[in-house]
């Protein structure tokens, strides 16, 4: 974590690439395996996370001076669970068709390590705007990772994208099963580290 202040754009970029939740920080790996067996699932969860993460970061940043440092963890939990509950209720009432599609994803956001981590590491120590940008960037990074992983898993495992058939013949069924999730995340993580080392002079995940 560098100490010099970053511009808002740098914060968003940092969330998307430099400290990408899944490929660089390796947190929130459960959903990256459980919910990436199709593009529709991955993208729905990603969008929901962008929203919740931005809102949670903004709220934590706003009330950070009222939070006693010793009890910050239960308070972050309340904020995350509160947002998830409220969004869930509002969607179930006023947007039922959408709720039927992505309601399941909203509920599982409660236990998201990446949202928790950013509230603790960033929003708790920074002003409102940088926190919003950081949350938005981290969310986008997560969305991006979900898109990449589910793209390969759905294409290889089902021969489809967004449910539309693209490749005929026998797909590699293992790719849409949990084992395939581990394979996809591991290989992609390795690939992005290799790209970083080869072209951008990075040191790989161990150097982060």
């Amino acid at each position: 974590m560098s100490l010099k202040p970053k511009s808002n754009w740098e914060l968003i970029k940092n969330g998307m690439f430099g400290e990408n939740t899944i490929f660089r920080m390796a947190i929130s790996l459960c959903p990256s395996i459980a919910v990436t067996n199709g593009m529709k699932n991955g993208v729905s969860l990603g969008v929901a996370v962008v929203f919740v993460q931005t809102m949670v970061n903004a709220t934590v940043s706003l009330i950070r001076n009222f939070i006693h440092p010793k009890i910050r963890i239960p308070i972050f939990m309340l904020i995350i669970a509160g947002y998830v509950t409220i969004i869930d209720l509002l969607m179930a009432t006023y947007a039922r068709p959408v709720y039927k599609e992505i309601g399941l994803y909203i509920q599982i956001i409660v236990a998201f390590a990446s949202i928790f981590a950013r509230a603790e590491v960033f929003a708790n120590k920074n002003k409102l705007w940088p926190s919003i940008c950081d949350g938005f960037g981290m969310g986008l990074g997560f969305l991006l990772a979900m898109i990449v992983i589910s793209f390969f898993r759905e294409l290889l495992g089902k021969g489809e994208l967004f449910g539309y058939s693209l490749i005929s013949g026998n797909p590699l069924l293992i790719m849409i099963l949990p084992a395939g999730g581990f394979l996809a995340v591991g290989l992609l993580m390795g690939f992005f580290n290799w790209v970083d080392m080869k072209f951008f002079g990075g040191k790989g995940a161990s150097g982060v």
Partner: protein
Amino acid sequence: MTTTDMAKITFNLVTIYVIGGLIMAFVYAKTSPIMFIKAKEEKEAALKLMMPEADKVAVLGTWEPHEKHAEYYAAQKCGEMKVISIKDEKTGEMKEEKECADPQDIGYIVEGFGKGYSSYIHILASVDKNFIVQKISILGHGETPGLGDEIEKDYFLTQFKGRSADNLVVIKGETPDKIQAITGATISSRAVTEDGVKNGVKLLKEKLSGEVEG
């Protein structure tokens, strides 16, 4: 840690949790009545779809799978539709209303719950008078996205048509007369088939077989 510190922390935590709780309670109070009405409308619409050829669906009774409230219904076709005139008590005007005369049961619908991988799956199943499954539909569930939620897909649901209670068994792999499990979601498939639909059909048989010929 001094007593003042402890009091400060306690006060801080309690205040924020009370505020959070109040906000959530407010949203719940505003949304839950609307949600309740919408869920009821959806259930009625789903009931109609279960047996489209029926003219009306009448509640026969209730049962409690997994200690949840569930109902079972008779799908009825009217012998003839009578048009009768009723006097509206408020306005005093005469209104014409259709009345269903001599309704005949053409099948039954049962609401059930199956214990799935991470939730109770809310199911409707319709059977004909010989208790052969005609159609099932999933009203709600909280199964894993991408695996368990495949139970909503047509390829799984259409397997149920024409099955008798004895054939409501989940098999891994191809099967001519039973139910094929969804890859990676055997528990959810079992919950729908064996826990939900099969128990529902059994209940209908138990309660109604006296009224059916044969």
